[in-house]
């Protein structure tokens, strides 16, 4: 995604781009109104902060070039004038700047980033934080997925953020600010994207061992594609097509898999791990820890603790044929 900034770019901004470019999770690469407002606010704050820093550095530089010489040019060592400088630069100017910042940030911009008025949103999505993955539900539909949120582009979505265990924080910086998921406090936030695309997010509140591997993607689809995705994901699993896949389904149902995972349309109805009904359609596994390829999938089910130490999926130690059948089955769940 390209870098576009609404405000003339200062030296630091040039440095930002030179150092890192715009990442896939950058607050400076906004693709929705709330993130754009915050980004604009940032560039203005940077401009003011740069001016203040520049002024102070200039004064210190003045002290440096006049070292071992008494007094200041024009000012000398006049006590009253020096005190006046402190009052002007230390009290009057900061007061004025702060009042302006307060009004702009906390009264104007904050309106856009607050929890959305329910009358202005077109649909609701529930996201539940777990150690260490995201459960995504579409109220009123049977569709359940994990670590990937699909939304129709240009649509104001009311996102309800809750947690199943510890505090997590839902954060997709290119779209909006973050919102914590606190036990007993369902929070809401606006989710909206201007353009179709994939937006990366990550848990922002320290949540234990694998906090670093708790990522998610938001996919903004065209309305038609979104509707197709939603109705497909509301449907039960695609029946296994080959003998090996059918064997995999048996293994899944009979082994420990089914006690933690749900696959709609089968007897697997566990509620601890992610719903796997359409797992093969997702782009990654283990909350963005690894890409969802056949090879990575096999590695993951064989030894989940090596890929993401501390996660709740145990190492099952099945015969190789069973693992191969499982991989074949899961890889076919489109």
């Amino acid at each position, binding site marked *: 995604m390209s870098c576009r900034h609404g405000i003339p770019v200062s030296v630091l901004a040039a440095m930002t781009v030179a150092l890192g470019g715009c990442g896939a999770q950058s607050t400076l690469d906004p693709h929705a109104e709330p993130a754009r407002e915050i980004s604009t606010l940032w560039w203005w704050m940077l401009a003011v902060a740069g001016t203040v820093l520049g002024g102070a550095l200039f004064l210190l530089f003045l002290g440096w070039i006049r070292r071992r010489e008494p007094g200041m040019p024009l000012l000398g060592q006049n006590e009253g004038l020096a005190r006046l400088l402190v009052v002007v630069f230390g009290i009057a100017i900061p007061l004025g700047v702060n009042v302006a910042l307060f009004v702009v940030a*906390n009264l104007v911009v904050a309106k856009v980033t607050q929890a959305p008025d329910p009358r202005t949103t077109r649909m609701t999505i529930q996201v539940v934080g777990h150690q260490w993955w995201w459960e995504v539900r579409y109220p009123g539909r049977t569709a359940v997925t994990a670590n990937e949120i699909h939304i129709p582009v240009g649509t104001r979505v009311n996102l309800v953020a809750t947690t199943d265990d510890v505090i997590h924080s839902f954060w997709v910086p290119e779209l909006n600010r973050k919102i*914590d998921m606190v036990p007993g406090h369902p929070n809401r936030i606006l989710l909206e994207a201007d353009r179709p695309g994939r937006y990366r997010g990550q848990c922002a509140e320290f949540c234990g061992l694998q906090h670093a591997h708790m990522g998610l993607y938001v996919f903004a689809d065209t309305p038609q594609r979104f509707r197709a995705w939603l109705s497909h994901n509301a449907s039960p699993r695609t029946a296994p097509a080959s003998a090996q896949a059918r064997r995999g389904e048996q293994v899944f149902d009979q082994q420990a898999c089914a006690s933690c995972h749900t696959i709609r349309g089968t007897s697997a109805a566990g509620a601890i791990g992610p719903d796997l009904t359409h797992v093969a359609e997702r782009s990654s596994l283990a909350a963005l820890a690894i890409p969802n390829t056949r090879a990575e999938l096999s590695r993951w089910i064989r030894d989940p603790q090596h890929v993401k130490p501390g996660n709740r999926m145990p190492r099952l130690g099945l015969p190789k044929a069973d693992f191969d059948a499982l991989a074949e089955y899961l890889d076919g769940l489109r």
Partner: protein
Amino acid sequence: VAATHVERLGRIWTEREGVMGWVTTTDHKRIGILYFFTALVFFLAGGVEALLIRTQLIGPNQNLLSPGAYNEVFTMHGITMIFLFVIPISTGAFGNYLLPLQIGARDMAFPRMNALSYWIFLGSGIFMYTGLVMGQAPDAGWFNYVPLADKQFSPYAGIDFYCLGIIFNSISSTLTAANFIVTIFRLRAPGMSLNRMPLFCYAFLAVAGALLFALPPLSVATTFLELDRRLGMHFYDVAAGGEPLLWQHLFWIFGHPEVYIIILPAFGIATSIIPTFVRRRMVAFELVALAEILVAFIGFGVWAHHMFAVGLPIATTIYFAAASMIIVIPSGIQLFAWITTIVTGTPIFKTPLLWILGFIVLFIIGGLSGVMFAAIPFDQQTTDTYFVVAHFHFVIFGAAVFPILGGIYFWFPKLTGRMYHEGLGQLSFWLAFAGTMLTFFPMHILGLEGMPRRDYTYPGGLGWTGPNLIETIGSYILTAGLLVMVGNLVWSRRHGRLAGNDPWKAPTLEWSTTSPPPPYNFPVIPTVTSPYAMWDPQDREEDRERLGRGVLTLERGHETPATTSLDGNLDELLEMPSHSPYPILLAAALSGVFVMLLVGHWTTALVFLACVGAVLVAWHREEPYG
């Protein structure tokens, strides 16, 4: 006549020799030195932890530390630097050593309690590090949020080490704070009315007041958590009607004033160094004194700006944002008072002033990024990212530790009687300054590019690799700067040029006595007519005259004068306690109580508690007032 006075004072005040002398000392200078070296050991531990963190993050997907070890290391880094390094070295070392000297007293108001603070601090530090050595270090961050820190999600003893260690440690800080307040209000030299007190002392008064009120909420929070964890209570348990946000409120009611507790001593050091090296009095003295007190006061009203992303009501966030902006004003006053003092003075850029110059630059950057967090939407976007890590390291390392390091250079001649090496001193500053900028400045960019804090690793391809590499290199340069400083001071301790009493022509009273000062500090109690006592040659001439006549030499007992708290008029003579074994015994008994609480031997804990009582009784049978 003067010679016999001095000889008698020496006999009365000199403590025992050898190790027993250090163990039983009540001399504020020796206690300050104990604090200094103990805090440095913890600084070394915290520094190694920092280097482990930076080395792990040198590139994407590194495995130097396991996820669990990384979480323990960053948690211990925070706890160590805050509770076991910055506060002990600023209040315990600088405050203890310098306060009585700056106000012209012979000791702190409660010398044995002062020793007790040190031994408790040492005990609590060893207690918390025992967990790490046993592989049971706390791993839920220094902020230790529930429910992650509850028994259900952290079943190991690490969090218990944290809770009990913090409660134990805060006893020490509370004692120190109470001691400072009484010392500052009662033991100032005759003539040192409050408006003639050095700004350094104002800063420590503000710190002591803030500590006294900030620690109880922390003790309450950690006690509740221990009760939840050990006795199955439900203070933070939503399922049973508890409230996890209660922890966050209590923690930050402590945690934000704590920021000013950390930084105010540094402000005090800056106000000592600047006038000395620019050869002029501070501009706007009263405004700066007022600002130091105000910062500590307003600091209690801003805590919820740490919680803007938890979904607080809008009215609440708006209030806390406004309060957070108001605190900019007293900081702005001090900042521009330092800058105008420098530019209207005659600056001589020796090593101590260089560190202060670095401090001013780093504090401006950290302060400006701090104001940005009062913009609620921006805070909600960047909180819990590396932008915050950048901000608070500019403030805590740049603004609090730089003056401490500058202060070490500044007072080194007073403590050792010798000068440090100026060239190496300046080299250590420039290395540390460059290292600090390289380590922490790119963190702003990382935060804006979306890198969260406290991640043990990160994927490539998100634009985070370059800044992380630069930061890690920066941290090595910073380490090199600190090592040059250590080498310089170790060498100078033996081979430096002799310093004399007052090598800097500095303005405050500690420079009137010998380097190092005698056990009784001053052969004659000085009298004072301005905050810049050493720049009033007439007053010092009078001191010498009085020493000759034996007036206010107090050589008949172990005494220091007390003065009235506002005007500093001579009030009475206080008989001070001398060396005592009880402080260390009390701290040992108290350590026993906390260890037994940790392992859950309640009866043995009660036995140790009885020992605490017994030591207290013995202690009070030896009141000097009889």
